């Protein structure tokens, strides 16, 4: 691998990311999948870094899932999105940051479509006015939340309590970065580092002390594929793609996976159990899996937040081996204590893959 070659490409795909004043919109599914990730984002942005981040309960789905499942027409999605932009405009913001990768792709696609077909934008403005008497300005800047964490990666590193380094050996941990398909595959110029060698997560890993693993199937989709996973009969094909990725990364012995999509971390995490049940194979050390984190969780870990406050007990693959490697202290007995130290009960643990 020639690092300078990648750096050259990274320098070709940089985008302007304003440092402050963002209008934040959440994902439909992330709070169910990885409940503390979005909370962690607001915590880091507002409390740790002291930035202005605004959100409103009036925000709804962007329609992206339905659009990618082919159940609603694009004009409908555009009108939903027009309403989100109207909420941003009413709040007095012009920098728009969605937490979901598919939303980000959806917004990029809609803005690009309006740019190419202004008559369609005019029609959507009319639709919105007829529907709810709202008007909007288009965002001046559009970024994904991972772009912001990337932008602030060094500021986060400066406040870090832990590093992505094996505390026993001093070696950097080997981290696989996995980018959601809708982040840059549709519009390579909208992603930090482009679509072939995205830098958005790699930059965080480097800044926080880890070493990025580049393996042959790095660019391959996690397999979620919306209509594939959502139809049970197609799930075999969904999990097969995840399996292909794990087979390809296996020789590199990664310590963890970092992701920036709602679906990817969920499937890379949960499918490890399904693969273990079906093939008897696990990809971590001693029968464990490879822990999968969102970038907010990873940031939270290195900033020293309690792993159980980060919701890591909801992961299928045990995170404890990873926490032990970098020297995070945690109370194993508190794993299943929720808010106010109430017992949230224990999940049934599988035999096919080792869990703590």
């Amino acid at each position: 691998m020639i690092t300078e070659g990648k750096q050259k490409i990274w320098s070709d795909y940089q985008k302007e990311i304003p440092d402050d004043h963002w209008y934040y919109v959440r994902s439909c599914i992330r709070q169910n999948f990885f409940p503390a990730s979005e909370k962690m984002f607001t915590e880091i942005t507002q409390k740790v870094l002291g930035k202005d981040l605004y959100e409103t309960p009036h925000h709804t789905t962007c329609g992206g899932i339905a659009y990618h499942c082919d159940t609603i027409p694009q004009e409908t999605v555009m009108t939903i999105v027009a309403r989100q932009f109207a909420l941003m405009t009413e709040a007095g913001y012009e920098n728009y940051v969605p937490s979901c990768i598919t939303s980000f792709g959806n917004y990029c696609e809609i803005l690009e479509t309006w740019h190419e077909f202004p008559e369609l934008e005019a029609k959507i403005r009319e639709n919105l006015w007829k529907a709810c008497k709202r008007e909007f300005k288009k965002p001046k800047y559009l970024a994904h939340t991972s772009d912001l964490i990337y932008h602030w990666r060094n500021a986060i590193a400066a406040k870090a309590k832990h590093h992505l380094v094996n505390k026993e050996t001093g070696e950097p941990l080997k981290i696989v970065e996995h980018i959601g398909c809708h982040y840059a595959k549709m519009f390579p110029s909208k992603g930090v580092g482009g679509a072939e060698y995205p830098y958005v997560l790699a930059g965080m890993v480097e800044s926080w002390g880890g070493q990025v693993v580049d393996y042959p199937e790095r660019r391959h989709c996690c397999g979620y594929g919306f209509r594939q996973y959502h139809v049970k009969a197609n799930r075999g094909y969904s999990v097969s793609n995840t399996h292909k990725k794990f087979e390809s990364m296996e020789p590199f012995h990664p310590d963890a996976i970092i992701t920036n999509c709602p679906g990817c971390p969920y499937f890379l995490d949960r499918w490890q159990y399904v693969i273990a049940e079906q093939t008897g194979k696990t990809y971590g050390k001693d029968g464990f899996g490879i822990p999968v984190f969102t970038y907010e969780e990873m940031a939270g870990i290195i900033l020293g937040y309690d792993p159980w406050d980060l919701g890591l007990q909801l992961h299928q693959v045990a995170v404890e081996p990873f926490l032990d490697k970098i020297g995070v202290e945690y109370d194993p007995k508190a794993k299943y204590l929720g808010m106010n130290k109430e017992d949230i009960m224990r999940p049934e643990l599988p035999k096919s893959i080792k869990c703590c």
Partner: protein
Amino acid sequence: MMDFGFSLSKSSTINLDTVDTTLYKKLCDMEPDARICMSCGSCSASCTAASFSGMSLRKVILALQRDQDVRPMLSNCMLSGKCTMVCPRAINTRHLILTLYRIYDR
């Protein structure tokens, strides 16, 4: 093993790292002209058996290089020799098919 109602799909990818080309190499040793096939499809287009059975000598030669079983296709050949007449690379296709039979017979 737990039944999820779905399972891993088998990959259709041809992996040239692991493909076994012993048979193809044997064929090339006995019929060096097998190598100069350029997959034009004339043989299949003129084949007596093609439209009724799926026989295609073009596919047979390729399938051997991808380690796929060609016997079901080969068994449909009527040995009419029409393919030999049309092959632009002058491959003695009829002879090549007979050679393949011989290889499989061993």
